[in-house]
């Protein structure tokens, strides 16, 4: 069994290794010579596809970690349990990759720790930075029991089980201090969280046997703020972002589309990894995730539609410009076609169609984020921007490295439910 799995790695794995290696080599070259030598970024376009794809889209693709792992836990549905560990792993790896991409994009990445001590709480970028730091910590805490289980570290597991909630409370309070700098708000937030946890401790609220609820709650809160804050970043540029995307509701759109993408990623990954590792596809489960996905898409389309009408942008949508074309690709591929698939009962039953629909949602999301960060940005006073091949190669390298690590962890740690139950039985 084990040898068979390793055999499946073959040529695909070799290609991924080469791409990851090339990406690392180019990244080293970039650190030696500066951003100008590997990117086409210029004074009018300071942000390119690294921001649009690696960062904005990358974070949204990691949303499965809080949508499946978190919301399901809060609002019911233990049946989704088999999806929780794979989505948390994806989210955790996604965030680590995102941090790598950020280090490549930042001009002076060795100073990134400045954000921890040099507070400027009015800045949306400050919020983004803090969400990244703290949510990555939360994801590590959510993922770590897998490691304890793998190496039978019972003592550490117990320590985790009883301290994780309090660490989460501490991180949320710290975040509130940094971002609000208001004593009443900090007290209010800390009070609600501590009250909840004390109720759990005294038995007034049910203690979940495996996952400290407050840890997931912290994950949801940080994710919500992080996903939406990436939209807030672009509220700062009413003069540069195309009117199709520039809306005061941008943070909300970023959040809702991230929820949809989180669900789509859960479906996409389950089917793909089931095929890759030769396991059964959890069909019933994925069908109900598909139903949630269709609701998320309806919400998203409704909000975007109302916003475009209220702001009177209708006529802009029919112009023959790159921006309009990009908008329609985003909406048709990312929302309309997948919605049609999910709402057609015959298609929604089929694994293949479910897979296609989620893949389209993911592609649509990526197009949307690239639109906001690159295509929708107009800078009249400089030459325009097209990504340099080395920018693309570094991105491809980072993603390849991520896939390799994901496969490695899935092979060597108890991620999928059938392996866990098999282990428990044996």
């Amino acid at each position, binding site marked *: 069994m084990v040898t068979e799995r390793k055999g499946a790695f073959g040529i695909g794995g070799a290609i991924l290794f080469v791409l990851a290696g090339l990406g690392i080599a180019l990244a080293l070259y970039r650190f030696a010579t500066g951003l100008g030598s590997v990117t086409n970024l210029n004074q009018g376009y300071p942000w390119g596809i690294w921001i649009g794809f690696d960062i904005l889209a990358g974070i949204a693709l990691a949303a499965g970690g809080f949508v499946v792992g978190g919301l399901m836990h809060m609002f019911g549905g233990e049946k989704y349990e088999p999806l929780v560990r794979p989505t948390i792993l994806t989210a955790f790896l996604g965030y680590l990759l995102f941090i790598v991409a950020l280090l490549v994009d930042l001009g002076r990445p060795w100073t990134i720790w400045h954000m921890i001590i040099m507070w400027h709480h009015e800045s*949306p970028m400050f919020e983004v930075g803090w969400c990244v730091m703290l949510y990555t910590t939360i994801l590590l805490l959510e993922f770590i029991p897998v490691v304890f289980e793998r190496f039978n570290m019972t003592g550490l597991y117990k320590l985790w089980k009883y301290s994780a909630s309090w660490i989460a409370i501490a991180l949320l309070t710290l975040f509130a201090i940094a971002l609000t700098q208001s004593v009443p708000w900090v007290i209010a937030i800390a009070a609600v969280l501590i009250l909840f946890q004390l109720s759990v401790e005294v038995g007034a609220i049910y203690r979940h046997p495996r996952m400290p609820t407050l840890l997931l709650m912290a994950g949801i809160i940080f994710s919500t703020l992080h996903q939406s804050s990436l939209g807030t970043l672009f509220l700062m540029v009413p003069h540069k972002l195309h009117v199709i995307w520039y809306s005061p509701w941008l943070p909300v759109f970023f959040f809702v589309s991230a929820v949809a993408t989180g669900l789509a990623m859960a479906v996409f990954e389950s089917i793909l990894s089931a095929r890759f590792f030769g396991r059964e596809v959890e069909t019933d489960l994925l069908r109900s995730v598909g139903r949630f996905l269709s609701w998320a898409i309806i919400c998203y389309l409704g909000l975007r539609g109302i916003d475009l009408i209220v702001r009177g942008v209708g006529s802009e949508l029919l112009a023959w410009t790159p921006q309009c074309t990009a908008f329609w690709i985003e909406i048709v591929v990312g929302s309309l076609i997948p919605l049609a698939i999910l709402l057609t009962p015959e298609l929604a039953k089929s694994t293949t169609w479910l897979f296609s629909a989620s893949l389209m949602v993911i592609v649509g999301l990526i197009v949307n984020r690239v639109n906001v960060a690159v295509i929708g940005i107009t800078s009249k006073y400089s030459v325009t921007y097209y990504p340099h091949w080395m920018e693309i190669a570094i991105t491809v390298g980072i993603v390849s490295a991520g896939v390799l690590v994901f496969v490695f962890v899935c092979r060597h740690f108890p991620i999928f439910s059938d392996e866990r139950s098999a282990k428990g039985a044996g």
Partner: protein
Amino acid sequence: MAVNALLIDTVRCTGCRGCQVACKQWNKRAAEKTEFFGGPGYQNPADLSKDTWCLVTYNEVRLGDRFEWVFGKKQCMHCNIPGCASACPVGALEKLDSGPVIYHKDKCIGCRYCMLACPFVVPRFEYGSWNPYITKCTMCYDRLQMGEIPACAKTCPTGSVTFGERDALIREARERIASNPSEYNHHIYGLEEAGGTCVLHISKVPFEKLGYITDVPRRPVAAQTELAMKSIPAVMVGLAVVLGASYKLRTRAHLRGEDAERPSGTT
């Protein structure tokens, strides 16, 4: 505290570029290798850069039946509420009460959000360096501290660049326009642009003819993010309450049943 500002009167400008040279000298910016480019004739270089913080622009404008040079000046506008300073996550860009927007290079992490946020497309990034910084005009803050006036204003031979207190300069600009209404376009660029700036421009012709960015929002760009940033704590408390309550309600049955291992019942 008196708010310092610059008044740029392009009607008085002869295009000598003394300010450009003085700026380079005082701020120790390197000379640039430049080349001819299409468009505005004698202008050199084409744009602001990491080494050019002050640039006289040459614009051929049709006035009546003939073409004339009308000059403009590109530099940091030192906004009253600057987008760059609001955007910076580590406070590397700072608006001083005395007017200038200055840059603390030791704080900068190189995220370039200030460049995106600036409505006037002013900050320049050192793309060619492994250890890059943002660069821009500082209103010669170091000179101001010594009681001197900015290098460009000091050197201008025609009084086209005037340094002074913002309110006084606004009055001065209005007087110049009122006393010579046919020579001036009746608009003070920087009075309302981006919520008001500490560099004010007046000119013979409308500013779009000088290549100035004229569709700048009239409110500070930072005002757009205020609501989103202020709702953070409300979102945190709201989510904590809703999620906690929902979990509590959902798990009521488990609590009564006290089943230790696996909660069941949800199908």
